């Protein structure tokens, strides 16, 4: 709760700075503030408490994920400095929106009431619509914003309908009440329908097949930093929320009571497989790096959805997976931001010869791609490992084999980029070494590797 308040306060401070003409201080102070929030959040870790009539329920799960979100936001804010260099008058808005977005995200994982959940997801979505469309003179950005907005509100409508049906069945929005009454046998059919609609809405947010179509277009059209935000923070938030919804509302047991569990699991398996396959295969022929990473994100969503099959045991795995994925995503996007600063697109050709001109950045991008591909020592590997382990233990060996095949396919396009960096001749000068970009890239990939070397650090948090 304190975290939430602090974040919101920080957002307002950002706006105030603009008024106080402290533009230059915004980013450093925001970062410091976020670090403070992170500390606060750590301090809260381990306390199970609910605030304000259980509107906000702080648990290990919520604090752990909140910390991850905060860390990601720190990186994203740090990257803002260079990204918004040409928009000095808007920087406070950008930063404030990101901070509010974080507030929404934190609300989404620590909600105790569906109202909070709904408001959280809307804050997140609206902030993202704005950010996607924020390059207002760029038609691509407009288009991305519009597409995202239309489809996002559509999905919001479905989520809202789901919440409504749940309310109809339960007479309450409170998660713990729903959790308890979910087991009663006398539930009207509205409850499972509502659940499924909500889950579908969330599947849209995580960009799972067949609700994924927006992702590539929006990722491609949005300004690169927004894409970074979407592919790391937003995706992670969405999947974490989905997980929390399913875990928090006792979905599994209640579906089991109504003999719907099998079909539900079949659906999850199918969506997971479809996401992995579609994401990976479609990524193969992409030229635009952001678009490629969008498809890669779709496939990762497929992987992460596997945790929904083992909800009771896989919170830690999900946390680990999301952390690994998001950290490598941040590292990758920092490099992309650097490389495509002055370009009007993010095509692979821009990366030619990066290995020669900027070996460090090339190495970082390589590392992050390897992590996403699941090559050992990077945390992406362990993430997949733990995930597969969990899933095989639950008996879904076929699903794991499909996932493995998909991992193989994914190497194909990740390596396309690596090859472009190392075995092609550079086609442009790359000057300047923006400190914040370098720092972000290095720190995020270092964190990624540390997670790889000591997975227990994160994994055991939620066990």
């Amino acid at each position, binding site marked *: 709760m304190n975290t939430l308040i602090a974040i919101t306060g920080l957002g307002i401070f950002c706006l105030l700075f603009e008024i106080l003409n402290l533009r230059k201080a915004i980013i450093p102070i925001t970062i410091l503030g976020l670090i403070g929030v992170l500390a606060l959040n750590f301090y809260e870790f381990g306390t199970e408490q609910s605030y304000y009539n259980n509107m906000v329920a702080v648990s290990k799960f919520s604090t752990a994920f909140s910390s991850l979100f905060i860390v990601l936001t720190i990186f994203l804010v740090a990257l803002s400095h260079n990204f918004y260099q040409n928009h000095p008058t808007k920087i406070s808005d950008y930063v404030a929106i990101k901070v509010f977005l974080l507030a929404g995200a934190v609300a989404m994982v620590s909600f105790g009431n569906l109202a909070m959940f709904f408001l959280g997801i809307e804050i997140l979505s609206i902030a993202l619509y704005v950010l996607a469309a924020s390059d207002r003179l760029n038609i691509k950005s407009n288009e991305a914003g519009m597409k995202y907005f239309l489809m996002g509100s559509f*999905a919001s409508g479905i989520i809202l309908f789901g919440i409504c049906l749940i309310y109809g069945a339960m007479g309450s929005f409170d998660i713990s009440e729903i959790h308890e009454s979910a087991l009663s046998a006398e539930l009207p059919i509205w409850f499972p329908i509502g659940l*499924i609609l909500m889950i579908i809405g969330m599947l849209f947010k995580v960009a799972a097949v067949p*609700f994924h179509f927006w992702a590539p*277009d929006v990722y491609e059209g949005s300004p690169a930093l927004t894409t970074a935000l979407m592919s790391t923070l937003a995706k992670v938030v969405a999947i974490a929320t989905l997980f929390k919804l399913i875990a928090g509302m006792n979905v599994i047991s209640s579906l089991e009571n109504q003999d719907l569990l099998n079909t539900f699991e079949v659906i999850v398996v199918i969506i997971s497989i479809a996401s992995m396959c579609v994401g990976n295969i479609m990524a193969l022929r992409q030229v635009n790096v952001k678009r490629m990473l969008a498809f890669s994100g779709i496939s990762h969503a497929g992987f992460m959805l596997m945790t929904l099959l083992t909800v009771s045991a896989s919170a830690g795995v999900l946390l680990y997976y999301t952390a690994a994925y998001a950290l490598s995503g941040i590292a990758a996007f920092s490099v992309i931001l650097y490389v495509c600063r002055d370009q009007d697109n993010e095509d692979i050709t821009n990366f030619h010869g990066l290995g020669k001109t900027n070996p460090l950045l090339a190495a970082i991008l390589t590392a992050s791609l390897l992590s996403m591909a699941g090559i050992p020592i990077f945390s992406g590997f362990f993430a997949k490992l733990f995930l597969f382990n969990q899933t095989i233990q639950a008996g879904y060996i076929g699903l794991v084999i499909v996932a493995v095949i998909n991992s193989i396919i994914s190497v194909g396009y990740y390596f396309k980029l690596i090859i472009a960096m190392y075995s092609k001749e550079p086609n442009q000068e790359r000057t300047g070494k923006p400190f914040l970009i370098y720092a972000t890239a290095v720190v995020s990939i270092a964190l990624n590797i540390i997670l790889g070397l000591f997975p227990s650090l994160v994994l055991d948090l939620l066990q």
Partner: protein
Amino acid sequence: MDTNLALILVLTPLLGFLVNVFFGKSLGKTVSGAIGTIAVAISFVVSLLLFNQITSTGKGIEVTLFDWIQISNLKINLGFLLDQLSVLWLLFVTGIGSLIHLYSISYMHDDENMHKFFSYLNLFVFFMITLVIGSNLLVLFIGWEGVGLCSYLLIGFWHKNQDYNDAAKKAFIMNRIGDLGLLIGMFIIGSMFSTLDYATLKTAIAGASNLDSSLLSLAALCLFIGACGKSAQIPLYTWLPDAMAGPTPVSALIHAATMVTAGIFMVTRLNFVFDLATDVQSVIAIIGAITSLVAATIGLVQNDIKKVLAYSTVSQLGLMFLALGFGAYEVAVFHVITHAFFKACLFLGSGSVIHGLHGEQDMRNMGGLRKVMPITFWTMLISSLAISGVPFFSGFFSKDEILLTAFHHSIPLYVVGSVASIMTAFYMFRLMFLTFFKEFRGTEEQKHHLHESGSLITIPLIILAILATFGGLISLPGHSWLNKYLAPLFTKATEGEHHLGTTEYTLMGVAVLGGLLGILIAYVKYFKQDNVPEADENITGLSKVLYNKYYVDEVYDAVFVAPVNSLSKFFRDYIETGLSALVFALGKIANEIAFQGKKLQTGSIGLYLFVFVLGLCAIVSYIFLAQ
């Protein structure tokens, strides 16, 4: 003491090899030649000492150096067995070896790589000694492959000529085919008796109660295939004539006197195995006979002086195998020894001729050398008489023994052997007449330079001629020293010495007459009628077939080499690319799907939402309606 002796025996040639390899060039030709020769000579002296010891004690010496290869049920030592057989072999290997080394000093003096030549020769002697004195089959195998290697190196000694290299390669590979047989034979024996050690094996076989005779036969057959490769028997004989590409001393040492007899050595060594495999013995006899006949027929029409000798070698080896096939090991060994003398002498003689003619090997371009090269002529004549089986020369006794044995076992094989002998006499004297009689048919340039070879060449010739004359004494019919000497080796009572009865004398007479007949025909054809073989393109009919060696090389080429090569091309061009394409196809398929999939991503919000709704309907209806 024994160990030291054995080590000196083995290591001196190796040392010679090493010295020549590393310092040969700087030492100068003569010195390196001398080192090579001395190294072998020392081995010869040691062999003599050992021979002396063996004859006096009558017991073999076993030396074990160290464990070599460990296999679960086999423990293979690197060890030596110096018994009657091996020492006998040692004697003529090192003896003739020394002579040929001596000969080579002069013969190879013009070659810039003389030190290399000597190092290879020394290496050969080293491996040959290893082969002979190994205490088990695997040590024999070291030598076996080692001499093959040296043979390869020496055949291809003039490596600028790719034909020679081809010949060298062919020799090595043909040998390797045999080696595989030998290996398989070893495997079978190893698994049957858990040992490859001769001595242990012998006792094991003697003690074995119920042997799987078919398996043992198989082993024997495989071993015989090995022997076929090394000793140039059908079907693996074709390398030997080609091997004449090497310098002549090599042909004399390796391809006449020593290496090619390794097969006979091995069979004799394992006589206790072959004795139990009677059907294999028949095979050996038949193959030996056929080889001797086939090689002899080819030898009839060859014009290359060394080729004639080569086919003669194959033919003689065939006779030895004929004897082996009848279990008459000591007879085969006897012929090995006499053959080593006279064939080495013949080769060296031909070398002397070639040397004198500066590399000319075609007999059609020779003639009349008798006067210019008297020593060469006389020594070669003696050897030719010996090989033709003219009485009281060494060959007479040994060949006669073989034919006698054959007669006692199988008349048809006897006839084949005899015919081969007659042919031998014919082509040997064809060689003599064409080379040494009548007028010189070469160029004026060559005629001008004709001369007798130097003493380093003639001395070995003379020694060998003497040996070729008197070598028969070691196993005179009825009073065979050799048989007694070798007796401890054999399990079966040997065939015993043939009682010199009427039959024997008759047969002897027939053989002598046959030999003389061959000589006579040659005399008539090439001396009286003064025929000179036709130029290559004019050869027709049967002669053409013979001249082209029954087209065996061509057949092998068409049946084995060409298919393998085209298979290789086929694999390379189709299977490999196909497999590769198959793997790539997976990627291509994925890419193609991606390409098609991209079309689905039209950018139209309507479509996206449509799919969204469809997905929603599908999920909801699956969960709630599809019960």
